[in-house]
């Protein structure tokens, strides 16, 4: 017979078992190429990534979109193989091959069955050292990306993101989407593609990550053999992003979509690079503010008011000073009220310390969910990539929990005051101007219409 169970209190939870990051080896080869390899197997698969710090932050001022176009072309022909031949080789083995860029880097990612490591390393070595940049592939990519850019404009969420970034980072690579602009995409020449590659793709700025049922040491040796003595054509000097003074009147940058079923809202400001000393505190602060379902913003806008399906915030981690952004999509009739609530939450974050419970919850979430991302080899690869890309020490994650445990509510309040200033936040909105303008007027915002053009 079962006794009567007292259900009135949550069961006590057992002690958290510390998560060991799977062991890995990191070696810098003579060429300057960094190789990170780990025997970590969750399936008969391997995950290979070639990462070069040649992201959009390196775009020349007049050529936004160049870095990501070059990145996308990397797997469209290398050595003796054309793009379709590379794809056919990988896909016939059940694998996948992709190349793309983001703000920080270019990534060639290759997933294969475990017994195909030699094929994989040989392919990546060829792609690193001998990409073809054929003119037909350049034109094909240009056309696809021009179409993609006009389609980006179809999505109200992307349009709101782009509008905010153009306001936060005038005259910088962060001002335009990764794809670039219609004008710059149309103007990029084959010579510019080659010269960007020559200037940025050097072994010293490149990381090779290999994870799976492999022998880490053997992989390093094989990489040495496959990559030979790769010498870059230049020694890359990383670009930086200069920020202007932060002095913003209360302005909402509004894209008028008279027929929109909902308003996409973005509220934010430029913040600091990923490796900033406050990074752990910012992660913890965001966990309290808008990084989780139970964070303040979502509980307020969704669960208390029913304004939205979700409200979230994020301090982007980039090589340069990435943005802090609050994102939500709300019913048109409450866009003003939702903006007011977001700003009030930011005010509260900067004016009173988090409660002890909130600090504990937000921190324990970050610590407890850490192993969640290690369930897949690609998830583990992403962690290692973050380490290497931002040049964190190799034991960075070993002390992660300790560092978070050392942060107090007072520390977090000071960091909030340093990084979040509700008075200078920029606001972008995409929705019906006729319905939105009076709401923003009432909040004391000047409404500035942004042209609805790609």
């Amino acid at each position, binding site marked *: 017979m*079962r006794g009567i169970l007292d259900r009135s209190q949550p069961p006590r939870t057992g002690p958290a078992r510390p998560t060991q990051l799977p062991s890995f080896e990191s070696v810098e080869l003579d060429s300057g190429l960094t190789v990170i390899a780990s025997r970590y197997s969750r399936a008969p698969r391997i995950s290979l990534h070639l990462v070069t710090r040649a992201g959009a932050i390196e775009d020349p001022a007049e050529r936004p979109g160049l870095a990501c176009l070059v990145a996308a072309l990397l797997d469209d022909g290398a050595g003796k193989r054309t*793009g379709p031949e590379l794809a056919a080789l990988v896909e016939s083995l059940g694998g996948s091959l992709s190349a793309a860029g983001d703000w920080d880097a270019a990534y060639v990612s290759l997933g294969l069955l475990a017994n195909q490591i030699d094929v994989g390393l040989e392919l990546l070595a060829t792609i690193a050292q001998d990409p073809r940049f054929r003119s037909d592939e350049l034109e094909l990519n240009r056309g696809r990306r021009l179409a993609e850019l006009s389609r980006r404009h179809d999505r109200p969420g992307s349009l709101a993101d782009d509008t905010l970034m153009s306001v936060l980072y005038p005259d910088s690579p962060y001002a335009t989407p990764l794809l670039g602009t219609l004008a710059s995409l149309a103007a990029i020449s084959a010579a510019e593609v080659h010269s960007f590659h020559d200037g940025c793709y050097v072994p010293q700025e490149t990381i090779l990550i290999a994870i799976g049922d492999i022998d880490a040491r053997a992989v390093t040796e094989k990489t040495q053999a496959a990559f030979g003595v790769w010498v870059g054509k230049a020694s890359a000097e990383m670009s930086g992003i200069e920020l202007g003074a932060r002095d913003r009147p209360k302005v909402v940058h509004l894209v008028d979509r008279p027929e929109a079923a909902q308003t996409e809202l973005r509220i934010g400001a430029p913040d600091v690079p990923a490796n900033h000393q406050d990074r752990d505190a910012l992660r913890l602060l965001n966990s309290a503010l808008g990084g989780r379902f139970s964070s303040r913003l979502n509980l307020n806008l969704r669960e208390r008011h029913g304004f939205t399906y979700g409200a979230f915030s994020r301090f982007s981690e980039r090589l340069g000073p990435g943005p802090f952004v609050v994102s939500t999509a709300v019913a048109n009739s409450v866009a003003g009220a939702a903006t007011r609530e977001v700003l009030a939450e930011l005010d509260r974050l900067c004016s009173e310390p988090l409660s002890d419970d909130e600090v504990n919850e937000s921190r324990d979430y970050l610590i407890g969910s850490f192993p969640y991302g290690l369930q897949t080899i690609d998830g583990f690869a992403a962690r290692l990539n973050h380490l290497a890309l931002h040049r964190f020490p190799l034991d960075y994650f070993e002390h992660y929990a300790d560092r978070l445990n050392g942060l107090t509510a007072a520390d977090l309040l000071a960091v909030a005051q340093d990084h979040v200033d509700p008075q200078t936040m920029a606001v972008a909105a995409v929705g019906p101007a006729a319905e939105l303008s009076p709401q923003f007027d009432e909040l004391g915002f000047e409404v500035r219409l942004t042209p609805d053009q790609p």
Partner: protein
Amino acid sequence: MHPQLPNPPELEIIEEQLDNGLRVVLHPDSTLPLVAINLWYHVGSMSEVPGRTGLAHLFEHMLFQGSEHVGTNDHFRLVQQVGGNANGSTWYDRTNYYETLPAGCLDLGLWLEADRMGYLLPALDQKKLDTQRQVVINERRQRTDNQPYGRALEKLHQLLYPEVHPHHWPVIGWPRDLEATELEDVKEFFRRHYGPNNAVLTVAGDIEPRSALAAIDKYFGAIPSIELAPTIDHPLPALGRTRSETMMDRVALPRLYLAYRWPGYGERSWSAGNLLATILSGGRSSPMYRDLVHQRQLAQEVSCLLYPTVETAPFLVIATARPGVDPEALLAEIDTHIERAISAEISREDFDRGRNQLACSIFDELQSLDERADELSRAATLLGSPERFSWEIETYEALDAEEVRRIAAQYLSSESRVRLTVVPQDSKGRA
């Protein structure tokens, strides 16, 4: 060049059933200090009737609003404060709820799931319903109404299935039905679908099976089974003809949708359809991509896909035209590919590639504990036993090119399909 695929991973699976009918699946794996709890209720939008569409999904939202012993916002809070993740999702033929927690928090997850299975009604009230109704209406706006091409799939389903068939309406429901849903509808839905005898509970990860089972029995054992709602029969008269429609949207590029009815998930023909979709358009070396996207550049993208739904599964072909390409011309080229697939032999290369891609994507999915738990619940709920989680891979290995072609010829008839074209509107809303 075409290596023998490795075998699917061998998972340790233990199957049990409590006296109240709850089916329990245990899968111990201590690689990481995590435990995944995954609960499938055998109910979804297939259990709805016209006038109350969206009820299954709205109900899923209500299940996160607390129960007799769990406060309104406590479900996510209690899970996240120990570092766990939780969510749920609603589909045509099932609704799932899941938590991934640090090992040592198994009891917390079981207590939460048991409380809302057994003690939900005292916590339901009108205010919670009204708030979640607004959340869901905003979810619908965000995912459907305010997205380019957002209403196209709904339109396609309306054309492909008769009005009384649940595939006719979207899982998220029609706004007017969401507005009309009353608290009593929600309560009745709970009473007729949410009981231990309509659920599969999978617990995977860093567990000791015997004590996990004891904990499950401790929290769920006393919940009485329910009288299940009778299964609704959904007769499906043949489509018998081609239906075509054009709709306008605020988009830069026209998009073409073709839809066919296919046998449901769990049948060998379904696997053949999924394999065919991958053969035709999976990856950059697939014939449709090579020809339409890469060589002739008629399409910005093209994909074939088959829904994993049980009673009937829509097979879709979706192609977005490149700027300046007439959707009619694109349609003619797609039809050539389909015609070839059903009349000519599928090449050895394409067949092997498709099969290898599908197998590898399943290997990839099975890496994570929460996906494994979900696959085990799926197999137990839809295929009768968790041991059948490898059913898909096994059928891909059993099929040959000729059988796939024969099945394709049976269901991909240009005489019996739906075609929808989305065209850009100008600034005044005209096509």
